[in-house]
């Protein structure tokens, strides 16, 4: 039986585990014991009191803040969501009726949509996991040079990345293919980093990821993909 990872156990502690992990915990005494161990320690962390500001502190905050507040221009009412919402709802109804009118074409569209959706889900998931590896590297402290975990995950992601890039090229999706190509080169570098990287090697990787703005672009593309997936 495959036991839950440390990450899955941590998510279980916070009640964020998926149904499979929950089912596994119901059946596996070993994992329940591991979770209990995490629970005992994390429950100790609840004592982290913040200092309590003195009485009248809020008035001091205001006195310091108020001179720095720039003058505000009045807001234009038609930009507020509750004014725009009825107009948007009317637009949706028109779009729905137009869709009903063109219903005959829907079967073909649905098949294409389903295919695109599968690809988007796979791509979104891949970008999320790549983003995690890179975010971890970028946020690693200078002394933290054990990159064996990141390196192993980058190796796993490489094959998937190649497949997705080739699929994107075949379907004429040049923009995503270019991003995946760029991602592949960085993943390759991470995968080939020695497990005990020097501080210099780590910094070079961090600089590379940051200078190309790759992390930021991954986030944007991933968020757009998730959004598009929901629409489909």
């Amino acid at each position: 039986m495959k036991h839950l990872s440390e990450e899955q156990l941590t998510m279980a502690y916070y009640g964020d585990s998926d149904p499979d992990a929950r089912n596994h915990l119901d059946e596996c005494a070993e994992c329940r014991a591991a979770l209990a161990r995490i629970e005992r320690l994390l429950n100790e962390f609840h004592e982290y009191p913040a200092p309590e500001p003195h009485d009248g502190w809020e008035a001091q905050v205001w006195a310091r803040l108020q001179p720095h507040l720039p003058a505000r221009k009045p807001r234009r009412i038609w930009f507020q969501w509750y004014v725009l919402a009825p107009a948007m709802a009317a637009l949706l109804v028109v779009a729905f009726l137009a869709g009903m009118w063109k219903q005959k074409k829907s079967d073909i569209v649905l098949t294409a949509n389903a295919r695109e959706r599968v690809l988007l889900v796979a791509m979104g998931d891949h970008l999320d996991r790549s983003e995690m590896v890179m975010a971890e590297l970028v946020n690693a402290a200078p002394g933290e040079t054990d990159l064996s975990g990141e390196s192993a995950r980058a190796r796993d992601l490489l094959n998937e990345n190649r497949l997705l890039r080739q699929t994107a090229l075949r379907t004429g999706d040049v923009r995503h293919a270019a991003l995946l190509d760029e991602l592949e080169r960085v993943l390759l570098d991470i995968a080939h980093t020695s497990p005990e990287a020097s501080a210099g090697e780590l910094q070079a990787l961090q600089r590379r990821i940051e200078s190309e703005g790759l992390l930021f672009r991954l986030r944007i593309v991933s968020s757009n993909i998730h959004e598009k997936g929901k629409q489909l």
Partner: protein
Amino acid sequence: MEWTDQAAAEEACRGNQQAFRVLVERHSRAVFRLAFRMTGNEQDAEDLVQETFLRAWKQLHRFDGRAAFGSWLYRIAANCSLDLIRAKRSRRETQPAADEANAANWMEAVASADPTPERLTHSSQIAALLPAAMQQLSAAERAAFVLRHYEGRNIEEIAQALGTGTGAAKHSVFRAVQKLRRALEPVWETGK
């Protein structure tokens, strides 16, 4: 007159500073607690309260009233704290001596935590060592951990605050817990 958060925010958006004062006085302690847990420093937390409300005032037109004002403000406070932690960390990277000193202090703190009859209970030891252990986390890990563990925010809210996907937010929480466990479990085990 007792304003709701929503009404006060709408009034403040029209330029009414007294309405904004109501919001400042109502939420500043919660913002302070969050900022302190994120930075571990009282003076930084005080500065972050100012910065958070200043940003909130400038961005009030973006608050559309669908979410609670407190949640919206929290996101701003978390982002301000993250900016400060990152700026401090990047300054520290140019001063390796300071890093070494921090690491040495941390080792010393752990070493001096041996349980003796005179010392505190092991729970108190953990509480005493936790702030130093938190300093070892990256900005994103610390923010994710504080928001999940102390503020009870869900993964979607944390992802929004950090500007990442939910997968990355989950992973930051996990990495934080993993580092804290590695740092504090040995102390805790010997204290049991």
